[in-house]
């Protein structure tokens, strides 16, 4: 399944997902503590450096920023007008958030979904003492990734069937069959998993390695 990941041969792409996510948190914290324009400048420079180092197409990546910048301009514009904050402050605030969104987007574009999912699995493993089971989480994430195209297809199919029968405005006629289908699928998939020897009680460290090699 295709993510937002854009492959390039670069140092940034090779960095582990944890380092990138940690770095993002660190830079965000620094930007939010640095006063005004300094934070914006620091984040902007970091963003530009990462963008260049990752060898991503600058035009495409920056085009992704247009929507949030327009949104932020509207939000802060309203604020500047109403609260009399002045345009300099508004511009700095927009620049800060635009830079942070750019950095977050770069993390997403340079990190494979599977690497990010593995990282989440390890992070959730830290919650094992409070009863969180990372192996089950990993299995559910893998299943969800597999099911998404299937469910998208189901939604489309049911909608088309209803349209053909002229009952597309009858909401119960749209969602009840869809949900019944999903719940029936759940029984079949459970049977399939158990037939292949999946045992939810047996989910220690061994199961973790199993799911990650299968992915």
């Amino acid at each position, binding site marked *: 399944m295709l*993510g*937002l*990941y854009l492959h390039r041969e670069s140092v940034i792409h090779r960095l582990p997902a944890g380092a990138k*996510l940690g770095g*993002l948190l660190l830079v*965000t914290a620094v930007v939010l503590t640095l006063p005004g324009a300094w934070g914006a400048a620091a984040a902007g420079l970091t963003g530009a450096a990462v963008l260049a180092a990752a060898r991503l197409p600058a035009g495409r990546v920056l085009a992704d920023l247009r929507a949030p910048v327009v*949104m*932020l301009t*509207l*939000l*802060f514009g*309203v*604020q500047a007008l*109403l*609260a009399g904050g002045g345009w300099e402050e508004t511009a700095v605030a927009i620049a800060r*958030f635009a830079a*942070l*969104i*750019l950095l*977050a*987007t770069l*993390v*997403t*574009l340079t*990190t*494979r*979904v599977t690497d*990010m*999912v593995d990282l*989440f699995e390890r992070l959730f493993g830290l919650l094992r003492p409070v009863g969180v*089971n990372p192996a089950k*989480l990993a299995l*559910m*994430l893998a*299943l*969800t*990734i597999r099911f*998404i195209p299937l*469910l*998208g297809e*189901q*939604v*489309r199919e049911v*909608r088309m069937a209803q349209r053909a029968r002229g009952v597309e405005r009858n*909401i*119960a006629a749209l*969602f*009840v069959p869809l*949900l*019944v289908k*999903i*719940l029936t*699928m*759940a*029984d079949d*998939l*459970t049977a399939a*998993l158990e037939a292949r020897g*999946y045992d*939810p009680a047996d989910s220690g460290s061994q199961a973790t390695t199993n799911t990650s090699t299968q992915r």
Partner: protein
Amino acid sequence: MSTRDLVLCALFAALLGGLGMAPPIPLGFLPVPVTAQTLGVMLAGTILGAKRGGIAALLFVLLVAAGLPLLAGGRGGIGVLLGPTGGFVLSWPVAAFVTGWLAERFATNANPIRLFAVSVLGGILVVYAGGIPWLWLVAGLPIEKAVFGSLAFVPGDLIKAGIAAVAAAGVRRAGILPIHA
């Protein structure tokens, strides 16, 4: 959690993604599009209950954070979650949990009115309680503007709660999945 619970959580997380493939209805003057995805949050709560519903929505949010373009309009990634409207998405796991918790207590039958009330409280109130302060904190939008701006989505959300109630009642009537399974 049984194997079936795992599968149900994964399926409903995938349903949230599937509902995102329906084209969003832009309102033009506001940054948050109207999507069918909060309907999926309400359905996860009313049909799966608190724990499984909450986990289903959490799986979805994790996959968005991991970089899958699952939000309506093919958006995804950490940038969107950290952006001005991120709070509306980050609150979904809590919203599904609260919807399910209320449903387990007050709407265990096929009464659509109760299911509607539960969907409104969990699926609208909780989502706004997460999204509006986020708009205020992250985007610095004055709180009253954030509240007024969000009001534009209430009619659409009420319709979604109605759909969730009718659909959940239909599934309950079919007797396929009792909420305390």
